[in-house]
């Protein structure tokens, strides 16, 4: 057990093991994404009220769900960095931020596109939409803070503090926005999905959610590998790797 943790702290080991993981996970992810998205796009029955625009759910919901989970991944990595001073956690946190922000962006954009045929407007100040927008700001805040520091070690610590504060706040934000919206907007616009979802629609959705989780993991690992190399630019294992000319 301890030796495992010890190894986790060793960049060369992490670099090689993540390479092995990626060699398997990346193809699986791509296949799952392809299957899930074509299934949703081509083979499911359209929703009886929304028609074909309903197919956006197969990218919208997975992106939203994984983006939210991504913030927690980032915050937990930040906590580990602060408490146990593990450098790998810092690498993970830094690598998760752009992926999470991109997925949040996808969720917002697909939601906005979905809104036009469904609600007749690109944007409404719905509770979930608003809190998703706030999540995007939280992600951008972490990225911007990291970039603003010159000393990257300090940047990691500062972002870890920010992530933790943000993590405490996410449920508060979500609850308050939800409550705020129900106060103002008595059920004139409602997601259709809350009630019951047909299993023929559910299975491809579950598949794409899983695929998006895998996608997040892949991107996280690949970002971490690039980051590990850059941080270890002066260590012998990186120099060896560079001179070996192989990039795997």
């Amino acid at each position: 057990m301890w030796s495992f943790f010890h190894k986790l702290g060793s960049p060369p080991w992490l670099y090689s093991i993540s390479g092995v993981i990626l060699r398997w996970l990346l193809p699986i992810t791509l296949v799952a994404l392809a299957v899930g998205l074509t299934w949703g796009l081509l083979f499911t029955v359209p929703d009886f009220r929304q028609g074909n625009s309903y197919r956006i759910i197969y990218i919208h919901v997975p992106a939203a769900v994984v983006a939210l989970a991504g913030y927690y991944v980032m915050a937990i990595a930040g906590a580990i960095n602060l408490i146990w001073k593990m450098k790998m956690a810092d690498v993970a946190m830094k690598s998760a931020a752009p992926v999470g922000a991109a997925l949040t962006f996808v969720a917002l954009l697909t939601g906005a596109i979905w809104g036009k045929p469904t609600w007749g407007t690109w944007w409404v100040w719905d509770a979930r939409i608003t809190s998703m927008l706030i999540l995007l700001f939280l992600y951008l805040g972490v990225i911007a803070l990291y970039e603003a520091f010159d000393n990257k070690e300090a940047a990691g610590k500062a972002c870890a503090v920010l992530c933790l504060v943000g993590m405490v706040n996410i449920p508060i934000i979500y609850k308050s926005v939800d409550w705020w919206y129900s106060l103002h907007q008595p059920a004139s616009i409602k997601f259709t999905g809350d009630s019951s979802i047909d299993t023929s629609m559910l299975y491809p959705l579950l598949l794409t959610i899983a695929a998006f989780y895998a996608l997040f993991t892949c991107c996280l690992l690949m970002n971490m590998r690039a980051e590990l190399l850059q941080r270890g630019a002066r260590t012998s294992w990186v120099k060896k790797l560079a001179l070996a000319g192989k990039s795997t």
Partner: protein
Amino acid sequence: MYFDSFDALLTMGGHGGFVWSAYLITILVMAAILIAPGRRRKKFLRQLAGELKRSRGDPNITEEEV
């Protein structure tokens, strides 16, 4: 497949533009986040190799000397 013609697939009963653009944007973003880290890593390795070779002045350096 649900759609019976290619045209139906494209228009999706009037919602085609929305659905296809949403999927397209998503796929572009996914491609970007999948490709960017690999490129960053390879570019860095190339740069470092170049620097190391330049500082040694010997293109055929072996691993033991590092």
